[in-house]
């Protein structure tokens, strides 16, 4: 009996809102404001695939109005094309364009779409190379890349564990502080890259807010999921933190993997094999960060292996996903998740650290450790450059 009034009071504002919407749309106010103004058109390039004699383009309409693609240009020349499902792309709609074009290997190309109102949308292919076809070789190559960039460096970093175990308690805290530094650096990087990827997200999908949603969402969800373990204290809490660090780093590496795959799917792949070594150095420090919380415990080998896999394997997964179906939206979202997960784990480590160091973040050894962690990441980052 009491439920009906509650429901009624819940529905009433919604009903009024619906009525108000009808009044606004029927009153001609919208038409009045739009009178004589050309439609707002926006098309984003989701994916560009290069095959011998063909360029395939996937687009999404993130603007408020439908867009009619009237003509297609490649390198400032009108070119034949076919478009599915239709030349007219509705709001939030997608379409694929096939252009039979004799593109030149290792040279840049530009694809431009000309709408019926004369607006142009361009995409630059910096260096044209055939897009790898999805198949056994594709999975194998990208798995190898993920292994080299993600899994192996993290595993090597984990091998600092025996050293950490022999350290004095004060220096373990120092190592934890270093971990905080590493994570702050990675978190900032994920956030920065997330916002950068957000710029490529079709307008209606609100890239910037997607970053906020992903990051804050990750913090809250992880806190909810791991909250009870984190309050228990002792070895269980420390192990939970280690897994959270691995997860955070894993999500960050997933974002990196997506970028690797995306480099191919957007036709942006260029050569530079020596940079791999820089990345291996860079990512090795991630392993150190994972084992630092459990240095005083005696984790089983299996635990260490699991930690390494959680942190490293997502690189492979990301590379596959990015190579097969990259979209700026997913890249943004995963990078944001990584940033949030890292923020959450920084909070968790700080709690542990503040307990053992008497709550003094600005104690010289702790502050120095955080700074050292950031400096290490910066320095190894320089090697990448």
């Amino acid at each position, binding site marked *: 009996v009491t439920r009906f009034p509650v429901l009624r009071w819940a529905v009433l504002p919604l009903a009024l809102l619906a009525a108000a919407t009808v009044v606004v749309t029927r009153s001609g106010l919208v038409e009045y404001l739009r009178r004589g103004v050309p439609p707002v058109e926006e098309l984003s390039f989701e994916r560009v695939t290069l095959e011998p004699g063909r360029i395939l383009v996937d687009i999404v309409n993130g603007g408020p109005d439908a867009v009619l693609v009237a003509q297609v240009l490649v390198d400032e*020349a009108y070119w034949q094309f076919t478009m599915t499902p239709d030349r007219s792309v509705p709001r939030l709609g997608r379409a694929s364009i096939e252009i039979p074009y004799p593109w030149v290997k290792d040279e840049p190309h530009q694809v431009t779409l000309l709408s019926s109102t004369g607006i142009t949308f361009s995409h630059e292919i910096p260096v044209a190379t055939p897009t790898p076809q999805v198949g056994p*070789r594709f999975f194998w*190559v990208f798995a190898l890349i993920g292994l080299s960039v993600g899994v192996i460096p993290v595993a090597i970093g984990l091998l600092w564990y025996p050293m950490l175990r022999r350290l004095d308690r004060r220096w373990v805290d120092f190592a934890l502080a270093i971990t905080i530094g590493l994570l702050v650096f990675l978190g900032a990087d994920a956030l920065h890259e997330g916002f950068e990827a957000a710029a490529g997200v079709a307008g209606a999908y609100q890239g910037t807010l997607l970053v906020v949603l992903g990051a804050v969402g990750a913090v809250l969800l992880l806190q909810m999921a791991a909250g009870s373990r984190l309050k228990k204290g002792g070895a269980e809490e420390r192990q939970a933190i280690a897994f959270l660090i691995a997860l955070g780093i894993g999500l960050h590496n997933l974002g990196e993997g997506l970028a690797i795959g995306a480099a191919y799917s957007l036709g942006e792949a260029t050569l530079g094999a020596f*940079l*791999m070594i820089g990345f291996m150095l860079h990512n090795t420090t991630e392993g150190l960060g994972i084992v630092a919380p459990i240095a005083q415990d005696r984790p089983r080998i299996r635990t260490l292996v699991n930690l390494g896999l959680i942190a490293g394997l997502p690189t492979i997964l990301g590379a596959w996903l990015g190579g097969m179906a990259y979209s700026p939206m997913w890249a943004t979202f995963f990078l944001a998740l990584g940033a949030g997960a890292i923020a959450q784990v920084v909070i968790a480590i700080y709690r542990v650290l503040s307990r053992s160091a008497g709550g003094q973040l600005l104690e010289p050894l702790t502050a120095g450790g955080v700074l050292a962690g950031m400096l290490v990441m910066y320095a190894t980052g320089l090697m990448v*450059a």
Partner: protein
Amino acid sequence: MDRDRRLSRRELLKRGAAGAAGVAGLTVLGDSAGATMHAARGEPSAMNGAHSMAGVVGSVSSDGFDPQAFLEHFDWGAESRLPSGQTLREYDIHAVDREIEVAPGVLFPAWTFNGQVPGPTIRAREGDRVRARFRNMGTHAHSLHFHGFHPADMDGSLEPVPPGGEFVYEFDAEPAGLHLYHCHVMPLKKHLHKGLYGAFIVDPPTPRPPAREMVMVMNGFDTNFDGENEVYAVNTVAFAYHHRPIEVRKGELQRIYLVNALEFDLVNSLHLHGNFFHVFRTGTSLSPHEFTDTIMMCQGERHVIEFSYRHTGPFMFHAHQSEFAELGWMGLFNVVERTV
């Protein structure tokens, strides 16, 4: 852009990854990159076939401006005789805003003379009295500015005609030659590239030899208003004469009144395939200045060119700026046997 110059961590990752893929492909998998190369070489038709796929898709709707009709249409005006015995030619020209189709499916919000771009080709004989009644039915001030001899108050450059206004331009048609008329209201670039221009032909007292005559106004359209043309053409519609070639009889003298009304780009040109032509610069002399197959023209420059074909078949004509040609300024003459 700034972003391109800066190498972010992720940017480098991509490169590193690409490098790794290359290394992995070559060392671990044997010949991944090579396999793709081979595939490309193994299917030459894929690449070669794509070479002939240039041009626009679809065709311009037929209910608007017809480039074929415009090509050979000359507006001689309403002819009468003044008491002095001088021939009077009266023209009605109005400016009106109109959306025009400049390439299949691509609409351009133009400012037009008599609803078309280029405006009607105005033609008179040297010494005729020209009386052009101009009505401005557009949304901005416009004017008619003719090239040629005329009094200062007939110049159309210092007295804009407001929307709804009217002005009668009157002067004697001279000198003989191929001239231009256009709106001369500031901002000039805007008024010109929006479409307010046309050819003004003054025939010499001694007529030119009989020929098949055509008007070609080379123009372009900046559809996204970024100061560069997206569409180039003769007589407005990209590839119009490429899709519907102009039929020409072998051996017959062809005369083109060629006008460059292009904005933004400094020069334009015409190149004829399988042929050479005589150039009568600005059409002011009856003896040719040059015999060539390519002529370069600055903004506002005009020439009369004459030629005839020795061979039958399709022959291209286009701007020799490849960029302009591929953006629409390309056409075909289809030369056929002369039937008696």
